[in-house]
Structures are given as C-alpha cells and as structure tokens.
C-alpha cells in the first residue's frame, strides 16, 4: 500500500494527495493505492502538481493500516505525518492528538 507525500510550495507544510487530486494536510485523508496502476496514477498526479507549482519533493511512501488508521512504515514518514516527537503541541498532532504515530 502506498500514498503520495509532498510539501506545499508556498509554506512547506507536509501534504498528501487525497481523493480528486486535492492535497490534504491530514494523512488520514490521503488516497491509498494497492497496485502498480494506482501508483502510476498517483505519480502522474504528483508530476502534474509539481509542474503547476503546487508542491515539491513528491514521493510515494509505503503505508499499512493499523486498527483502521493509516500508518507509514518508515519512522521518518510517521514523524512527518504527526509532527516532531519532542513537541506534541506542534505540527499536525497539535490539531489532532490521535495523529501521533510515533
């Protein structure tokens, strides 16, 4: 399972590609794909968003579903999805404590 991660150009905020080509700030709203076709579709959408100067550093990341919630396999991406582990009051986790994925 994969989804597409990026940073938004104007402010650098971590975003993920959601349904309908919308970039979302909460990884829970990201579109998850399960096959090569899906990955290719996400990557193409990423290239188009880069070309439109919406996002940068686009990357497909591996995720799993744990207890019904999306969880990136790599710690790096879990920290990105939640915020700094040392500052639970900052980043995504500040708005949504359940987002703490570390």
């Amino acid at each position, binding site marked *: 399972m994969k989804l597409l991660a990026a940073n938004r150009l*104007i402010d650098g*905020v971590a975003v993920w590609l959601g349904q309908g080509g919308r970039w979302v700030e909460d990884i829970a709203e990201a579109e998850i794909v399960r096959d090569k076709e899906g990955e290719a579709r996400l990557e193409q959408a990423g290239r188009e968003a*880069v070309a439109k100067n919406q996002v*940068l550093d686009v990357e497909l990341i591996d995720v799993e579903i744990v207890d019904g919630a999306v969880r990136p*396999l790599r710690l*790096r991406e879990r920290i*990105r999805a939640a915020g700094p*582990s*040392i*500052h639970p009051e900052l980043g995504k986790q500040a708005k949504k404590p359940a987002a703490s994925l570390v």
Partner: protein
Amino acid sequence: MYRYDEFDHAFVNARVAEFRDQVERRLAGEITEDQFKPLRLMNGVYLQLHAYMLRIAIPYGTLSSRQMRMLAHIARTYDKGYGHFTTRQNLQFHWPALKDIPDILEKLASVEMHAIQTSGNCIRNVTADHFAGAAADEVADPRPYAEILRQWSSLHPEFSYLPRKFKIAVTGAERDRAAVQVHDIGLHLKKNAAGELGFAVYVGGGLGRTPMVAKKIRDFLPEEHLLSYCTAILRVYNLHGRRDNKYKARIKILVHETGTAELTAQVEKEFEALKESELKLPEADIRAIGTYFAPPALPPRPEGDRALAASANADRGFATWLRRNLHTHKNPDYVSVTISLKGIGEVPGDMSADQMDAVADLANAYAFDEIRVSHEQNLVLPHVARADLKAVYDRLVEIGLATANAGLVTDIIACPGLDYCALANARSIPVAQQISNRFADQARQEEIGDLKIKISGCINACGHHHVGHIGILGVEKKGAELYQVTLGGSGDENTALGDIIGRGFGPDEIVDAVETIVDTYLGLRLDNNENFLAAYRRLGPAPFKEALYGSEAKAA
C-alpha cells in the same frame, strides 16, 4: 561589535530585494524548483520534513541585544515562538513559510543580519571561540580576522561554486574552543618569537561521512597574509577538489588523496604568486577592523568577591552555578557567563522568544549588550562584573536558564535529527533528553565531572559525534533507530576522533549504555582529577567494551 557601513547595508538590502523577486517568481510559477533550489539554499532556506527551515548566520557567534530581540520578534511573528541555536553558531527557525521569508530577511537586514551563505557549496559562516575578546588565556581576539574573512568570502565570485561547502574556524588561544582541527581551514591565532601576530594554519579537517583531523600546513603565517594564503588554499581546492562524487568533494579528501606534503607545496606555490598582491592586508585595515571589536570600557568593580562570597553562602544553587558556568576574564573584576540552553530534559539549543527577549535585556543591563552563541549550543555573556553575577543568576532562574551544567554530562550537543531534518536517519533530541533526565542529579553530574556527549542523527555529523568524549550516531537499521557509540573523541587542541566501540544500541538501550560507560569510568579512574577523556586515553576501549558487551566482547 562590527557595525555595517553604507556598503554593507546596500549590499544586504540588495540581496533581500533580489531574493524577494526570486521568491515571487517561484510562487508565480515563472521558475521551477530546480532553478530555485540553489537560489534559496544560498539564502539559507532549506526544506525539511514539516516545513521550510531558515538558517540565519551569526558571524563568529556574536550577537547584540538588539539582534537577539529581532530574533525573538521573528520567532513570534513568523515561526512557532522559538529558535534553535546550532553547532555552527547559527540560528535556525524550523517553521517559516516561504512566502514570509523575504520579509524575515528584510527585518534581519535592519539589525545587520542575514542568511547569506549559510548553505550551498560556498564558504560558510566563519566561526570563532565564543569567549573571544574576553578570555584571560587569549593571545588576541580572533573575531577581527573572522570578520575580514567574512567580508572577503561573501559572494566571492571565484568561490561561490566550490566542489562542496567550506568551513573556516578561528581561535585566539592555545586552548582551542573553536574546534579548528575539524574544519576545512582552521586558524590558530598566535604570536611568534618577535611578538608578531600570525596563524598556525590547519587544512582538511572535517567530520561527516569521512571524519578527518586537519593537517597543519603552516606553523606561522603572518597576519597580513591571511587572505592571500586562504585564497591559495581555496584555489588549489577549487581546481583539484573532486566534483564527480559529492561524498569525496570536501577538501579533506583532496588533502588525503594528494598527500599533505604535495598539497602544501601546491598551496605555497600559489601563495608565492599572491602574497604581494592586493590581497596582502594593510596593517591599517587590520587595526581598523580590530577597533570594532575593542572590548567595552570595563569600569573597576572590585566589590565583586565580597558580594559573591556572601551570596554563595546563602544560596547553594547560586554557588553551584558559579562553580560550573563561569569562564575566566582578562579583567579580574569580570567573568564570562555561560547560559546553558541544556535545561534538564529540554531540547539542546532551543530557546523561546520570551527567553531571547529576557537574555537581550540581561545583556543590556549587565553585559554591555553583547551575547555569544557557542558551537556547543549555549549562550555566553562575555563581560559580566562579578559583583553583578547574583542579579544575573536570579533573572536566569526566573526564565529557566540557570542550569549549572556547563561542560557536564547533561550539557549535550544534539543536531535536530529526525524530528525535523530531511537528511536524518534517527532522532537525536529524544536521546539527549533521556540522557539528561537520567543524569539530572547535580551532585552526580559534578562527581562525574567534565564529559562531552555529542549526538548526530545521521552520518553528516552536525552533532559532532566523532569528537564527543562519548559520541552517539543514530542510524536506521531494518526500519528502526539504532545508535552507534564512539568513545574518546575530542574537538580541542588535542583533537581526536572517537573509536567505534561495538554494535549499536536500540532507542530503549542507549541511555543504559551511556550509564554503563560512565559507571565504568567512575570505577576505573585514578581519582576525581582524572576526567573521562584522560581515563579513556589511559585505559583504551577494552574495559568499556567488556562492560557493555561482556562475553560477547571477549568472543570478538
């Protein structure tokens, strides 16, 4: 302090305007990220995990109260209310929006600051001893020379596209507090037998993937040849440094592959052609820059000792702080004060906007408006009358910055690590926090004595782990964090790289491992005058391996 002249103001303002235009064009889609990235990096703008990061240069670690207040203002207005002081005497904001950065740079320019050359393959912020201009053991203040290097290297057309980044450090005392031997060029300011000022020149030091201690290629370079000699080194590097492999592009690799004797010969040949050129520094120019760094007029304050004795008897916390956080000043009525940014369990190097304002006020009231940033991620008030120490301490207690741990086991260097950094493989800060909490007891810390722990979250070694007495390197192994330990490193006048001690430790094992190392030292030291590093150098790694790995070590 150095003050911008008309040229400096125009130069920095022009740069801000240029970058504002570049950001506008980027946001309008007129330039691509590939085109923009090198431009933003040259202005200190990185992209990290959660946001952009802006790295602001603090030349040779010297700040005024006014500048500190502006950093506080920026932290509040454009960031999340805090900043992070780094191991290169810089300050990083971890949350600025790209659209706001031109405004931030404009505000920085208004207090004579910028972010130029805090990234990119150019000559970076020149660092220096944080006690410069104040330390009793100093031969001369290294900062005028650091400032001359800053002016020479800023947007130097020949050296803006080097094979890789290039770092210069200057120290002015025999006791090296600027870690000059782990820089691309290290300069040790000294006097020759005739009493003339000059430099011992070290080349090719560095940490990172391939750590190397610099080689001394000149025992004495007269001060007037500072720029011609550095130019000669940079020219040899620019010509022969490898551009085919990023990991072999630093000058340390060139020195290593060429050989010190041959490289020195090349530098000396280039220098011969340059030494009488316009790069030769006129005596008047050196002295003119030096006047900017003249120490403040320090009025006699002989009442200090009496006041201190009374206060220290009445306040044990104050007495402890006096033992740890003072450094001897040239003027016996004064001292340099270390403000620890390593509160127990806190994030090393982080400081809130309110604390920045409070320290600016303290510097204004008691320290002639001067603040220093140390490469050990602490602040220093370089000139404080001994008679004022209690007032300074009491205020530091109020703002949570009176931790009496300078040089102790909880005075830990740590890079931002995987909590922020896109390059990191593991977290650094939580490890520092856990070690700090484990060794929180003040009496135990003082019993252990001087001990430098340095932690990096990846092989790039921003946390200087190779030169930690105990160094910790975070890596990623099979998707999990793993911490490798090195012992016996040091970044002073006897610079040494630490020895890798054995297999790494998981996040839940690393603090115990550090404690085992410390307990082993305590059990084997000759007496409490033999500090950790001295004991390690006497004992070697064997007893520490045995303590950490037991029979496993014997089998190996």
